[in-house]
């Protein structure tokens, strides 16, 4: 395997990781601040993608489509927070899981009623399609490069929001002591709705970005949701920094595992057996990584006990 291919795969892993980060950031924020396990996060990802596909279909503009995905997901996020999620904060995690699982089913079927059972079309805009030549002679997809950049900008923005602004201070305070911040006169329910909508908007953006190179279909959010949970468990639940580290770690492990393992196995095994054993093991790799991290750091890389 050549170095160029390896570098290209590292970029691919980075892109996958950044995309996972957009999902995981909202999930970990919601868990950290409100103590809520939100299985419906994948549905918000799907809503973002469908909103983007619909708006791109009407207007032909990718930028408008991205904005629509942010707004639609934030809107639905705020809506379910106000109607359903709000009643769950005081309940235990099992109740939260049950209620948010019900939301998955409701959103999936509602989307099917609205858009039908067949996948929708959403393509990358012309100005982002094709490839660019990176230094060193690597031919890389412009769109994937854009995803990496957008993801890193969002990550930087989130860090600033949480560490430098008043809202961020409240969010951090909310993580530490929910009752005290309420007693100090902060309207905790408004803060919760805001955080939830923010997390939802990030999921929606991620759905729209990914929808353009994958398929926009009902149920697209659930596989990503599982990975996002792995990411936040590895990174430490509630930590944005952990979500970024975990996402990039998972992205790199998965992508490099898929390409390197079959090659490694083929050095001492027959080719087709190496492919199937290698790819079977590669699909387990991130869970092995998660187990490994949990053995040495039971609260995750950046988690507090």
């Amino acid at each position: 395997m050549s170095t160029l291919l390896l570098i290209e795969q590292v970029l691919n892993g980075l892109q996958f990781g950044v995309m996972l980060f957009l999902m995981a950031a909202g999930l970990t924020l919601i868990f950290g601040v409100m103590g809520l396990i939100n299985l419906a996060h994948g549905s918000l990802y799907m809503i973002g993608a469908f909103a983007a596909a619909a708006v791109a279909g009407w207007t032909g503009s990718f930028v408008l489509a991205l904005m629509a995905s942010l707004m639609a997901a934030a809107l639905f996020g705020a809506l379910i927070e106000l109607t359903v999620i709000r009643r769950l904060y005081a309940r235990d995690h099992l109740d939260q899981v049950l209620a948010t699982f019900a939301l998955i089913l409701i959103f999936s079927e509602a989307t099917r009623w609205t858009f039908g059972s067949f996948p929708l079309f959403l393509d990358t805009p012309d100005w982002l399609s094709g490839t660019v030549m990176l230094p060193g002679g690597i031919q890389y997809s412009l769109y994937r490069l854009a995803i990496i950049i957008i993801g890193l900008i969002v990550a930087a923005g989130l860090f600033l929001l949480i560490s430098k602004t008043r809202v961020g201070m409240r969010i951090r305070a909310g993580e530490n002591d929910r009752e005290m911040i309420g007693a100090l006169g902060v309207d905790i329910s408004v803060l919760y709705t805001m955080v939830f909508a923010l997390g939802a908007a990030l999921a929606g953006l991620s759905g729209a970005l990914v929808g353009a190179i994958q398929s926009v279909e009902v149920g697209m959010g659930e596989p990503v949701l599982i990975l996002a949970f792995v990411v936040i468990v590895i990174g430490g639940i509630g930590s944005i920094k952990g979500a970024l580290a975990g996402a990039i770690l998972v992205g790199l492990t998965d992508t490099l595992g898929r390409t390197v393992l079959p090659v490694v196995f083929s050095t001492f095994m027959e080719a087709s057996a190496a492919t199937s054993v290698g790819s079977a093991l590669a699909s387990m790799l991130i869970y092995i990584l998660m187990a490994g991290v949990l053995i040495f750091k039971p609260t995750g890389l950046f988690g507090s006990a």
Partner: protein
Amino acid sequence: MISKTAKHTLKAFGAATALSMTLATGAFADGHGAVKVGMITTLTGGGAGLGVDIRDGFMLAVEQSGNTNIEVVIEDDQRKPDVAVQLSDKMIQSEKVDILTGIVWSNLALAVVPSATAQGKFYLSPNAGPTQLAGKGCHENYFNVAWQNDNLHEAAGAHAKATGYANSFILAPNYPAGQDALTGYKRYYDGALAGEVYTKLGQTDYAAEIAQIRASGADSVFFFLPGGMGISFLKQYADSGIELPVVGPAFSFDQGILQAVGDAALGVQNTSQWNKDIDNAANKAFVETFQAAYGRLPSLYASQGFDTANLILSAMAKADVKDQDAFRAALKEADFASVRGDFKFGNNQHPIQNIYVREVIKEGDVYTNKIISTALTNHQDVYAAECGLN
């Protein structure tokens, strides 16, 4: 006046509703018993488009026949093997169906079919054709109306060989039908392999595989990635700037999928036993009426559902389903006008049929396929020889 057959039928239904009683009486008019069909297919979640097409094709044939003796119970398996098994138990034990059909996915078919046939029910597959049920595991009550899993991939291999490709990069998901796919392709393609990759089932990001294709020095790419996986792959492949020709089975270039892939699929050659431009009266009528009834073009899956229903109807005209031997013989004759043209069953009760090469084109605003050549003529699967049936 109620005859003995009709009484018998009514009795078999037990607590039948008024509706099914009318059906049973109607059955008597034809001299043959009513048939209750249990359809288990994927109607929600990812991949629902396939199940919806099978159901719609099937029900269209039932409606067109005007035959009121056939009752269809439809349930959604959500693409989950455990749900499919529960549904089949329910259909056999409480619904008392005579025939089961509908399953889209091979792993679900493998979970349901052996127990259904062991309990003396007919199973007619409108899609999945796993190897395990075609060779030694064949069963006298199991009929496949679509294809054996390997078939379309074998045709792709034959087409690649005929076109002169000599260094293919091949990929498929790591599950029974994916393994069948690569095996099938390699059976007819005899060039070198630039790479052979199994992806995760349900994988949606193919950046890593596409980078491997770019680095491999291949002269062609063969892939089998059904449903959303294929959409993702094709869009990312088109965006990668690689311009190697792509061949594949029809599943990734089907009517339900093409609109979501867009220009990325144009010109791709794919193999199928059916296309909307096959020239016969049954097919013309099918394409027209399907479009009129549902407002979209039919897919390969819809054609398979349509054929499955017509096969059942043709057997119903000849025999009573309660007389299993006669009904089985009637099914095996395959005496119906298949929309794909000539169709007959081999000894393992899988189709012997032509498989065509199609090319993706754009007709107005709609992406669709047209047949450009025949890849394999009167093709039968290789597992038939291992099957003990005659």
